[in-house]
């Protein structure tokens, strides 16, 4: 339980740096597909820096408003996304120390990332535009699809450790990581990590077919804060899989914080790669899959884990 005040400041800085690195890696993958393989290291560098140049461009761009827009709701929606990510990151341990490790760490994480429901809908509703409202509603459909399997995956991890405190979940994975004996819960959690940040195959709320859906009318700082918030949420979602299923700081040779960084980077690279490999899943088809396939699977996993816990 790090009660040092520096950890409260270090968390946002680390998350923003991780988000920039992840955005650079994603820009590299996208550029190699769009413009062909990078010749020299200089081209490789400029491609990796495109997100930062884009951020500078957006900072300089004045925001524009649509007619009869509810700018207050847009501003709350866009500001709420990074806030939700940072609040959810409060229970993320680096190695074995986190900003705060309450007894209900897992439920806190779930509650804070559920704030994205309000954030994306408000951002979609605010500008009073057709496509952005459609994008906002799509996130509600996505939420309905991913939320229950996600909750049961988190509960299964808590069940395995016998506690909702993230620290104890990490401690319970001393010998055997949860990902090994709870593979379905780990897979469902990764799917819901993608869905939570509406990233990869689940980016229909900001889909290319609806001109970036909820973010269609965002420009300038609003757009930067919104998409920056989405990156932060993706980083936090990927990072939370480490203490929950991949043994947090445990691992031979390397110090605890190094293992956390390595594992988070691996999960983040996997999540970013998935976006390159699949088209956007349309929610009317994914909703059926989520309710009729994922939910029973994750319930069976919870049953299996509880039987193991009772017999142990």
């Amino acid at each position, binding site marked *: 339980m790090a009660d040092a005040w520096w950890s409260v400041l270090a968390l946002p800085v680390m998350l923003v740096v991780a988000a920039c690195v992840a955005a650079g890696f994603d820009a590299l993958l996208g550029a190699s597909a769009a413009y062909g393989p990078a010749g020299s290291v200089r081209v490789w560098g400029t491609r990796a820096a495109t997100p930062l140049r884009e951020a500078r461009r957006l900072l300089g761009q004045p925001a524009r*408003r649509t*007619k*009869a*827009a*509810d*700018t*207050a*709701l847009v501003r*709350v929606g866009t500001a709420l996304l990074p806030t939700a990510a940072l609040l959810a990151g409060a229970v993320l341990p680096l190695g074995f120390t986190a900003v705060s490790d*309450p*007894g*209900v760490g897992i*439920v*806190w994480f*779930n*509650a804070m990332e*559920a*704030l994205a*429901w*309000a954030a994306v*809908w*408000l951002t979609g*509703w605010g500008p*009073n535009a057709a496509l952005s409202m459609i994008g906002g*509603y799509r996130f*509600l459909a996505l*939420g*309905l699809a991913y*939320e229950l399997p996600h909750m049961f995956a988190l509960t299964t991890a808590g069940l395995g450790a016998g506690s*909702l405190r993230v620290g104890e979940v990490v401690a319970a994975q001393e010998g055997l990581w949860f990902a090994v004996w709870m593979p379905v819960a780990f897979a469902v959690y990764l799917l819901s990590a993608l869905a939570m940040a509406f990233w990869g195959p689940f980016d229909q709320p900001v889909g290319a077919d609806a001109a970036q859906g909820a973010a269609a009318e965002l420009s300038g700082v609003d757009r930067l804060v919104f998409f920056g918030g989405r990156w932060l949420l993706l980083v936090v979602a990927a990072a939370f899989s480490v203490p929950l299923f991949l043994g947090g700081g445990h691992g031979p040779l390397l110090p605890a914080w190094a293992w956390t960084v390595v594992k988070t980077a691996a999960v983040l690279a996997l999540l970013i790669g998935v976006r390159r490999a699949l088209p956007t899943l349309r929610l009317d088809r994914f909703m059926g899959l989520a309710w009729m396939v994922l939910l029973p699977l994750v319930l069976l996993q919870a049953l299996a884990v509880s039987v193991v816990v009772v017999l142990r």
Partner: protein
Amino acid sequence: MTDGGVWAGVVSVVLAVLAVICAVQVFRFDSMARATYALLGSLLCVGGEVLLLGLDYLGVVIVLMMTVEMALMGVFMVMFMMNPGGLMPMTMVHNARGAAVISGLVFAGLTAGIFLVPWPVSRTRAPADPTHDLGRALMGPHMLTMMTLGLALFAAIVATVTLATARGRYGPSTPAPPHGPKGPEHPDETEAPERPHEQEAAPERPHVREDSPHAHSREDLTPSHGRQDPAHPRETGSPAHPHGREDPS
């Protein structure tokens, strides 16, 4: 969070004031989206208060449930509300004064009760882990409550599905084709029922488009679209702000 002394006291008062402000705003906002999220703000403050009172698990669960619930409530607010975006200033209240008087009396009564009742000071020691305590109670002596809650939730799911879907008990057995004639169950007797409140207000929709007379008044339940209703001149009710409004930004 345990009893943090002065600091917790200050935060609890701030959250209390915020909760009441948001609660009042819920009924003063014109836009349904703002009303919904003001209600969310109020209930998040309630979750914060429960956290401050030491019930960590229940506080966070309230925050989680309320966020998801208000997001879904937003869908219904837009579906059923006359003025979801708050662009048309209109009030949908009846006898606001009477309601204010009654709720004021109730509040006065409760406050009197709070200050007059000699609350017992002695209290049993708070258990180390209230969540563990709650879990034990729900699985032990309160198993009956747990069962009824489970059954109530299951009944709610089944009832919601049958009531809401068109193929449920109350919808037409075969959903009306999108543009077919109106289903039989729109009896004509609702054509002109006695509704005192509406008579003096211009019953038909305020028109903003001169050239498309969609006279959609309450009485006009006939399926034909855009039938120009001779009885209602078009111009009534459109606000005196014909052209070129300034933009709110």
